[in-house]
């Protein structure tokens, strides 16, 4: 008899498309708090974690990116 494969686990979704305005981005409480402290709108930060979760590293990258962007513009 053919072997019936069990249902696959639902795969983790890939990082979603840019968020719609008002969407609460996915980030752990500490990341959210740091974003507030840094004055960063998480809305505009790309998330690299599962399901597009924003990590501390993503925040770091966002901050550095901005600095570099500003430096380049200057």
């Amino acid at each position, binding site marked *: 008899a053919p072997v*019936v494969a*069990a*249902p696959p*686990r*639902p795969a*983790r*979704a890939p990082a*979603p498309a840019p968020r719609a305005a008002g969407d*609460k981005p*996915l*980030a*752990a*409480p500490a990341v*959210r*708090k740091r974003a*507030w*402290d840094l*004055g960063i709108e998480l809305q505009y930060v790309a998330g690299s*974690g*599962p*399901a*597009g*979760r924003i990590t501390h590293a993503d925040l770091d990258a966002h901050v550095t990116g901005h600095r570099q962007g500003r430096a380049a513009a200057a």
Partner: protein
Amino acid sequence: GPVDVECEMMVLGAGPGGYSAAFRSADLGMNTVLVEKYATLGGVCLNVGCIPSKALLHVAHIMDETAHMADLGVSFAKPDVDIDKLRAYKDKVIKTMTGGLAGMAKARKVNVVQGVGKFLSPNHIEVTGPDGAKKVVAFQKAIIAAGSAVVKLPFVPEDPRIVDSTGALELRQVPKRMLVIGGGIIGLEMATVYSTLGARIDVVEMMDGLMQGADREAVKVWQKFNASRFDNIMLKTKTVGVEALPEGIKVTFEAAEAGQPAPEAQVYDLVLVAVGRSPNGKKIGAEAAGVSVTDRGFIPVDGQMRTNVPHIFAIGDLVGQPMLAHKAVHEAHVAAEAAHGEKAFFDAKVIPSVAYTDPEVAWVGLTEDEAKAKGIKIEKGHFPWAASGRAVANGRSEGFTKLLFDAETHRIIGGTIVGTSAGDMIGEVALAIEMGADGVDIGKTIHPHPTLGESIGMAAEAYEGVCTDLPPPRKR
């Protein structure tokens, strides 16, 4: 007028919101005054709410457990209940906790001013002490935490046999027949205590189910387990008349939907009115401070808990639902930090709710009904406690643990636990939601066996289709 006390931060009300705000403010270095009407700190929660109710529920829980132990080989005779001693125990618990708060206030040099506060201006409040003496406190910043009061039904007369939750917690008597008006958490917690102490209970509720807001399947489990406590559960029913007769309190009912038959009038020994709480926003002279208050008495605030007046914040029951102590405490920290100039923001995704009944019912995030109403597609992980070795060993396998996942992102967005200790375990589900965890994250976290807590891991595994403590997953 003359100012008696000057401070940087004035907190009005010393409930969970107020004392937490005052303590956090002091810890941040602000010179803090805490204004409270009563002699003890802790507000509703410690004095006539969360804490005394749980002291009585604990005793009820042990009594209920022993009633089933004969099947397990250990037979208890009915215990002797000394209601005065039980009340004294409850009072001792309150005293321990409020005493602890007083000590912590002192250690922080928080200046507690006892009396009823009424704003005089955006920077002044007048406090009328228990002896009628008035003091004026001048403040640079303020946090309003004046809480809420019980909602009264206009047609209910004054009578010692008619009580609100505060009266019920006084345990003045154990009635034979008791009516609980309002099938919410507070009413059902009190029903649990009184029925364990020997009362037969009726509940009347306007809506079509008990414990509104909770998962319907969980309430069903709860209701089945608790069926023996109740003579009548009258749903979709309005209480329309309450009359104090010598032989008891006569209560008349009407169907909530026109044209439906109403239950007959009944006579009770005790009636508990537990139909909700309303915010105290209108009782503090907010207008003198320029603080907006809604018609219903709520004070609108932004994400930093700031009112329309920039240096005045508000927190707790009087800023909105859910009226829960843990919400007040977290808001308190945000308000104190924001007042101190930090960028604090209240952005918790979820606030858990718990009914501390037996079994407990605990939930957090979205329920199935809410997800449906919002059009969010969900998938479930369901673990019945009949498959939990620990629940079976405890003789308490009626419960379940249910996790809800977003069908698209697979992240957890809600969870319900019904069963013993449910409230102690729902924090993990809250953490999972805040962290953005998915089924794999939770299922691959090793939970200890045999615990009730592992049911959370198992429910996540069930969702992933990999649980081996359940029958084989249906093919998707």
